[in-house]
């Protein structure tokens, strides 16, 4: 199991006095995938990351990361994992090069390999030209890229990113996402991406889990989660939607409400409504239907619904 799964959490909990920051969460992260860990601020994302790296001891439950126990073998985990913390945690007085030099020494990379790897990463992220300047003079985007380079320096098997694109402009955020996707694809790295940027998660992640108040409230692929939020709505576009037809449709048991949207008609349906029967009903009464659509919710809409407790997820 540990070969196929980079992270396995079983009923993992961490309480701070009466506060249940992480409350019995269970999830698995397949190796060499990008896993999105979604949740609002204060949901327990950062605490979970600290637990996974062995920086905090769990109050209950257990977890393995890369096959190692988070309590007994935390140092082994940290050897093989790279972290990009939310606030980056860069030594502002050091230059970009020195910062990577420090972490290369910490991971005991041999001198030549260390120098080559630092050069490779700084070049790849477009930071090489300013490598000797103190980090304090760099822009936020450059600092975030450097923090990513630092996390990647020792070629970790697991990369843990806590809000990696927070504070980045749109162009830098897109570039960083492309970098992450390429890395996961080409280098077989497992990426644990903690974010509240739903667009990012939808674009990058194969699997996501949603955490709210310390509990996992949904888990699956982004497509599966969007299914959870599939609107109970049928949009019919075409001609022949007369008032009589609309009244007839409104009178059907499975139709909750009906409204016009330009040349289309939107029907709000009961749970489990037979849409094919409704379409046939409309056609039989003279409607010429050009397009029938069940609009799908975006991950963002599902996320909001989940947080508001309107959708029951598995």
């Amino acid at each position, binding site marked *: 199991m540990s070969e196929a799964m980079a992270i396995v959490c079983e009923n993992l909990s961490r309480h701070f006095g009466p506060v249940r920051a992480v409350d019995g969460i269970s999830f698995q992260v397949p190796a060499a995938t990008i896993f999105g860990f979604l949740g609002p601020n204060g949901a327990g994302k950062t605490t979970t990351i600290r637990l996974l790296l062995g920086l905090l001891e769990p109050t209950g439950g257990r977890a393995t990361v890369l096959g190692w126990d988070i309590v007994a073998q935390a140092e082994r985990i940290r050897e093989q994992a790279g972290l990009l913390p939310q606030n980056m*945690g860069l030594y502002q007085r*050091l230059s970009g090069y020195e910062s990577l030099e420090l972490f290369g020494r910490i991971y005991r990379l041999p001198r030549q390999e260390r120098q080559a790897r630092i050069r490779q990463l700084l070049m790849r992220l477009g930071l090489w030209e300013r490598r000797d300047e103190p980090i304090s003079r760099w822009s936020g985007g450059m600092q975030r890229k450097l923090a990513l380079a630092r996390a990647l320096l020792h070629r970790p098997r697991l990369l843990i990113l806590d809000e990696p694109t927070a504070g980045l402009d749109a162009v830098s955020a897109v570039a960083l996402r492309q970098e992450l996707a390429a890395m996961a694809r080409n280098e077989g790295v497992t990426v644990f991406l903690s974010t509240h940027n739903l667009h990012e998660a939808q674009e990058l992640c194969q699997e996501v889990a949603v955490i709210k108040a310390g509990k996992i409230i949904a888990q699956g692929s982004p497509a599966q989660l969007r299914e959870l939020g599939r609107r109970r709505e049928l949009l019919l576009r075409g001609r022949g939607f007369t008032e009589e037809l609309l009244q007839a449709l409104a009178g059907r048991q499975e139709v909750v409400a009906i409204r016009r949207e330009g040349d289309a008609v939107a029907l709000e349906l009961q749970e489990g409504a037979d849409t094919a029967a409704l379409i046939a009903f409309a056609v039989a009464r003279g409607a010429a239907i050009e397009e029938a659509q069940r609009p799908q919710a975006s991950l963002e809409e599902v996320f909001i619904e989940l947080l508001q407790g309107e959708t029951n997820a598995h």
Partner: protein
Amino acid sequence: MLTDLTTMIWKEWKEYFLQRGNMRGGLVGYLVVLGVFGAYLPYQTGPEWVRSPAPMALWSWLPLFLVSSLVADSFAGERERGTLEAILATRLPDRAILLGKILALVLYGFAFVVLGALLALLTVNVAYSSEGLLLYSPLLALGIVAFGLLFALLAASAGVLISLQAPTARQAAQTMSIAIMILLFVPILGFQALPATLQQQLYLVLEEPERLRPALLGLALAIALADILAVAA
């Protein structure tokens, strides 16, 4: 473990010397302090500087001040800036981070004592060459080295303990300042509270370093014990 410690010391020293923005600024600051205590004061004092035990007190106190100016930031400051989490999340064992920080501070303070004492020796020999070769007595030399090291270790380990517990670097610095004030003023005020005859006798003792041997040994043992307690805590 040794590699991890040297990595931590490398990192800490980089940060100390880059406090003024660049390495040159940091070195200049260090050299100015060294110049005052290693050249100017010995030059003003003359050959007595290497004969009297009084400068030994200075070499003992200085690492305390030097170390205490940096130690508050060691954990509390790093925690505030988020760098502590970044370094804790690496493969470095916690004990290597802790010992590395203590060692970096001790070496910083102790290097100042050794370099300052040697510079002072050079200064008085050059400035007062007519007096012949001037050297510290073995007891004085041992006292400078031992007390320099012990006080640096005391400041580093107690300071790290304070920095670990303090919620902010500012609070750690305040606590450290109070501790230093107590260490500095309690002996001075205590001395002033003694009867005049006893004070006179103590002055006489100070003029003969060899008579100080038991007192120095006792003091060294007391500081060493305090060091052990602080490191253990």
